């Protein structure tokens, strides 16, 4: 017991230290691209942790998580678009312009993603099992096609941003600063999630994953709890999406494609479902593998596939489980 706990602390601490020092490593190696790559990793890690809240802790197998990631990204994209075009976002009933104010835009991205996940969750959570997977998938695809058809916002081609959203004092245009900003958001989100899963609310969510019927017969109106969890996860994904739009200075409907949900799901499975550090490891491993394999072959997925299957089959808790010793329970 003691040993496992120490190994967990060790891995958490080592990961944090690694991410903290990465820009220094990159500059020592003279490889600035590393910072960009790891910024993406941090952002996907944030999305994957949020997905794990519903997938690993809540047992809600959503294949539509990217809908909220995409929503967050498009809030940034659309508001930037109107600044760039010098047009109004809304002219009636009130006049609203675009914005490049990071605090305002990101807050809107989070709120709007939460709102969307409230809508989609309220309907999807009336179902369970395979139906739930299909309906979340269907909603995400609907949004995907919606944005494909929105010619005003570039349709298929998406929107290119001229610059990142701006913060007071902090220089978001600087890649290293932006990296640390993303790291900060990830750390905060993981900490909040840690409190969440150990709280009374978290216990209810974990209970619902393990035995829905029993939860109801104990007296829990479980739908409400699942919905709130779904919204929290959607808000997290929305923040990740907003950061992603800023990192790449580009948004497109591809962000909402269901394969993108699949990738997030793979990150969670690969890293370790029902753990908070696992999805971070999973995002890191998947994106690094993708990066290096795609140098050698276009068909990197064909090589990645078997690797994923092996990890998921042999390590119940993914990479995190392998590193900490297998049978860790939800924590």
């Amino acid at each position: 017991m003691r040993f496992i706990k120490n190994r967990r602390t060790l891995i958490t601490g080592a990961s944090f230290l690694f991410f903290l020092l990465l820009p220094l490593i990159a500059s020592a190696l003279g490889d600035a691209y590393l910072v960009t790559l790891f910024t993406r990793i941090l952002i996907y890690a944030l999305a994957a942790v949020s997905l794990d809240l519903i997938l690993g802790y809540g047992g809600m197998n959503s294949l539509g998580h990217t809908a909220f990631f995409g929503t967050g990204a498009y809030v940034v994209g659309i508001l930037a678009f109107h600044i760039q075009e010098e047009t109004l976002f809304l002219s009636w009933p009130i006049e609203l312009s675009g914005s490049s104010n990071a605090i305002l835009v990101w807050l809107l991205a989070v709120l709007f993603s939460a709102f969307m996940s409230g809508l989609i969750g309220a309907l999807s959570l009336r179902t369970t099992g395979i139906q739930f997977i299909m309906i979340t998938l269907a909603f995400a695809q609907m949004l995907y096609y919606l944005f494909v058809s929105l010619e005003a916002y570039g349709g298929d081609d998406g929107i290119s941003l001229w610059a990142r959203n701006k913060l007071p004092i902090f220089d978001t245009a600087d890649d290293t600063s932006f990296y640390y900003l993303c790291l900060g958001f990830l750390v905060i989100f993981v900490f909040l999630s840690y409190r969440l899963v150990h709280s009374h609310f978290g216990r209810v969510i974990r209970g619902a994953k393990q035995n829905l019927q029993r939860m109801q017969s104990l007296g829990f109106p479980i739908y409400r709890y699942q919905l709130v969890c779904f919204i929290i996860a959607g808000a997290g994904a929305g923040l990740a999406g907003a950061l992603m739009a800023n990192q790449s200075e580009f948004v497109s409907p591809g962000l909402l494609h269901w394969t993108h949900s699949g990738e997030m799901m793979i990150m969670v499975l690969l890293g370790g479902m029902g753990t908070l550090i696992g999805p971070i490891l999973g995002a890191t491993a998947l994106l690094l593998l993708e990066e290096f394999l795609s140098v050698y072959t276009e068909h990197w997925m064909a090589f990645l596939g078997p690797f994923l299957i092996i990890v998921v089959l042999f390590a119940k808790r993914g990479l995190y489980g392998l590193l900490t010793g297998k049978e860790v329970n939800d924590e």
Partner: protein
Amino acid sequence: MMSNTLLKVRQLQKSFGAVEACCNINLEINKGEIHALIGPNGAGKTTLIQQLAGQMLPDSGSIEFDGQDITRLPAHKRALLGLARSFQITSIFGQMSAEENIALAVQAHMGHSFRFWRPANKNKKLQPTIETALEKCGLLERRHIVADNLSHGEKRQLEAGMALAVTPKLLMLDEPMAGMGPGSAVKMTELIQSIKGNTSILLVEHDMHAVFNLADRITVLVYGKPIATGTPEEISHNQDVRSAYLGEGDN
């Protein structure tokens, strides 16, 4: 005058296709009594409990609990009214410790759980109730064991422990002793005896020794129909029951 009846089931009817699992069931459970429900496999005992607890809706008929019509009330609301059940097929939270299983049962009755910040396992308010329940179901020493790793008997104790943790008004136990060794069955009998009084109990059980020891009244269900209700004495002498169920010549 206050009514002495806690649960009133009238004309309850439930079919699965051609199978009439419950036909025209009338049943009354008094406050404080242990009411045993016996009958052969497939008689409809579990189906009745499912409808009483709200996991399943009846085709027709009504259920009144503590003066309130609950026929169509969702399961979680019935639980909060004081109607608790245990399951014939063990239904626990496998990856949680025995203590956390009980804690969930207690937490359900302590107001809403939209509490996101403080660690649940440090909540001092739940602790006394949890410990009492753990002690009652005999798992105090095994509290930190993950439920999946408990023995079969212990899982059954936990199953019952979750149902009685919050002192329900009516506790429905669906074959609590199924698959238990003799030692554990005796413990379960003692447990049921000890909670009698404040809590009424609907006991479904095949162990006739336990049933005749514990029950104040017994209802015999055959093919979805109650064929007799009475004290253990009356039931053991009832000719219909003897031929239909207990087996002529036994006892």
